[in-house]
């Protein structure tokens, strides 16, 4: 009976054949289904990339370990990084935006539904191509011909001479393909937000989620394109014998770093801005207060977007740039802390004096606040060039960016999962399992990434295959690996929760959280056309106005 409750599965025949239903999913152009496809795809690869991380951690658990060979270890960290960034984090972000943006701005679909489907399948194909590399060459246990050049693929390591065979080609082509997909989706999101808002939904009344998605889409367009360009150059080098990154012919290895990080740093904000977006939706609802300082939040986000385009070379302090260049990138990197700080203060101010309900989504957002603060602070430390010279190549840096990517982005997205799951499936998630997931993951996260800072400070380099005993790293590395077990258990509970709740969860109704944005005004799950009649909006909290006609928001907004 569960499937019958979902309108798109209803038909004249109670259950249509499986092939037919699969065919519907493959050919769909509905933004909600594509959003779900993105998210499911990302979750599958989250598990894959998590297994790759676990293999690395088992290898580093004790000194002189030889669980895998050095070659396999190189392949693991390359695949882990590439998969997590391009095929987990980006699809998650796009999935959320795809599903929610049209609902939030009162539109019936994205601006270009077919481009939307095309973009998804490009991204999906990229991930499949990348993982296809496991099947070549030395077989799966030697990890096939998986790329082994790091997710940044520094030249000249990627030249034909140093990377024979096809491993690097898998990396390049997979990212090129999925990059085109990302650009397509970004253009789509941008156009949707700018052109398809419902009557009354001015830019100043859009939910913060839509504003932040807009910024994210702009960043994707400006950041992923340089990566695609650089990938084309790498292909010219590898297939046509070009010399862009060939130091023997006068080419430059440093220019690859510039090109890569021109993409690489804005990419961090492509991922974190949607996390901000999720938090900006959840915290007000569970604090029972409107967001504090809406215009400032928008301004700070756009500001972050702009500054993030001028900070890339802080990944390259150790390359030997001029002091003037180092100084510029130190300052611009630190400048980003200012709008980010404004955002954190505004979230705190939203919670301040509110009636806070610690449901699962809110728990994850609270975790986000603390962890993002710490991750941001170690980022400011690393922005000091002299400090970066000492620790830039160490585990300290690995700990820093995992603090941001797992501790902030993933926590926020987990919160988003619990928050919007009732809308997507029509069922509530189990609170007990959700809280179990939260605590397991929180403990695992802190065990892993808090402990990781210390061996970094003690001099343990990144990407190291194994190490000598007696350097003070052993115990810390063991703790880090134990933390991974907790995170793995947490993820299992999470996936189990999703599956269980989908079949057995309580009915959600259209608005289980008593929220204020437009997506909660439709049924759960929303019908294919989203809104029977396009809504008309008069304030930033349209549902509040509906529920409280005696005291609507638009009286107080200009």
């Amino acid at each position: 009976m569960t499937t019958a409750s979902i309108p798109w599965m209803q038909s004249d025949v109670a259950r249509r054949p499986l092939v037919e239903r699969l065919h519907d999913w493959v050919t769909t152009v509905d933004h909600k289904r594509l959003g779900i496809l993105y998210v499911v795809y990302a979750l599958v690869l989250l598990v894959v990339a998590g297994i790759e991380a676990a293999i690395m951690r088992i290898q580093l658990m004790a000194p002189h370990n030889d669980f895998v060979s050095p070659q396999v270890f190189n392949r693991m960290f390359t695949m882990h990084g590439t998969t997590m960034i391009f095929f987990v984090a980006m699809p998650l972000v796009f999935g959320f935006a795809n599903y929610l943006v049209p609902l939030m701005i009162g539109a019936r679909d994205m601006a270009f539904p077919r481009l939307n489907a095309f973009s998804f399948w490009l991204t999906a194909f990229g991930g499949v191509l990348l993982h296809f590399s496991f099947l070549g060459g030395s077989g799966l246990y030697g990890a096939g011909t998986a790329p082994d050049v790091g997710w940044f693929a520094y030249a000249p390591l990627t030249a034909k001479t140093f990377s024979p065979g096809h491993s690097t080609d898998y990396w390049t082509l997979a990212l090129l393909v999925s990059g085109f997909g990302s650009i397509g989706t970004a253009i789509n999101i941008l156009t949707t937000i700018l052109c398809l808002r419902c009557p009354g939904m001015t830019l100043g009344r859009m939910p913060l989620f839509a504003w932040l998605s807009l910024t994210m889409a702009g960043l994707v367009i400006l950041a992923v394109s340089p990566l695609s360009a650089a990938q084309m150059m790498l292909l010219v080098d590898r297939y046509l014998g070009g010399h862009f990154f060939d130091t023997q012919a006068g080419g430059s290895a440093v220019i690859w770093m510039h090109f890569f990080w021109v993409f690489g740093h804005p990419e961090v904000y492509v991922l974190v801005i949607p996390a901000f977006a999720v938090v900006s939706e959840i915290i007000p609802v569970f604090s029972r207060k409107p967001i504090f300082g809406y215009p400032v939040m928008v301004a700070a986000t756009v500001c972050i977007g702009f500054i993030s385009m001028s900070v890339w070379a802080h990944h390259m302090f150790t390359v030997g740039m001029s002091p003037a260049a180092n100084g510029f990138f130190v300052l611009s990197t630190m400048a980003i802390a200012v709008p980010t700080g404004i955002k954190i203060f505004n979230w705190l101010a939203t919670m301040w004096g509110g009636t806070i309900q610690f449901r699962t989504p809110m728990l994850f957002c609270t975790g986000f606040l603390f962890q993002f603060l710490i991750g941001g602070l170690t980022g400011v430390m690393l922005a000091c060039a002299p400090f970066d010279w000492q620790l830039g190549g160490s585990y300290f840096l690995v700990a820093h960016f995992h603090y941001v990517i797992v501790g902030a982005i993933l926590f926020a997205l987990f919160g988003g999962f619990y928050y919007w799951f009732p809308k997507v499936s029509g069922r509530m998630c189990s609170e007990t399992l959700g809280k179990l997931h939260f605590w397991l993951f929180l403990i695992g996260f802190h065990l892993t990434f808090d402990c990781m800072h210390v061996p970094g400070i003690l001099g343990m380099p990144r990407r190291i295959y194994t190490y000598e005993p007696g350097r003070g790293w052993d115990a810390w590395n063991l703790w880090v690996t134990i933390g991974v077990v907790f995170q793995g258990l947490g993820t299992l509970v999470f996936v189990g929760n999703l599956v269980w709740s989908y079949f057995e969860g309580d009915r959600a109704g259209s608005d289980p959280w008593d929220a204020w944005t437009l997506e909660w005004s439709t049924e759960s799950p929303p019908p294919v056309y989203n809104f029977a009649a396009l809504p008309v909006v008069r304030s930033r909290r349209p549902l509040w106005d509906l529920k409280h006609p005696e005291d609507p928001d638009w009286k107080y907004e200009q």
Partner: protein
Amino acid sequence: MYGLIAAEAAIFTIFVVAYLFYVGKSLVGPLPNEVLHAPVFLTICLLSSSLTIHRAVAALRRARMRTFELWWAFTIALGAVFLGGTAREWHHLIYDQGLTVRTNLFGTSYYSLVGLHAFHVTVGLLGLLTVLLLGLGGRVGQEHTERLDVLSLYWHFVDAVWIVVFTVVYVIGR
């Protein structure tokens, strides 16, 4: 389309930066000042095609189908002349001067940048040609003005990029 153009502009920027970065860094010849001749005629052709496509869409807006088709075909001819000229230039470079992608840094960055632009001209021409065929089949009408506006925007963009490429490759690069 503006989103696509922004993305394309970013891609071209990276190629232009690479070209400028490698100017004068080739270790072996031939060098740009030995082999490149500024294709002034081709540039005039391509830039004037912006004007013709503008006239074509303007004619379509006023539902003058004959004028539209004429200007549209003219645009295609100008684009084709440009593309043919590029092909001739490359033929000359490859067979007479021995400059290929493999030869030196100049070859690599030159063929990449100019080739990327030529690729965009080709895509544009295919689009224009499709519209012309549909137009001759009587399938294009005034109601398509908005869509052809988008196509002509792309064509203008390709022209504008050529100004940058021309400046970088044939003026600064020599």
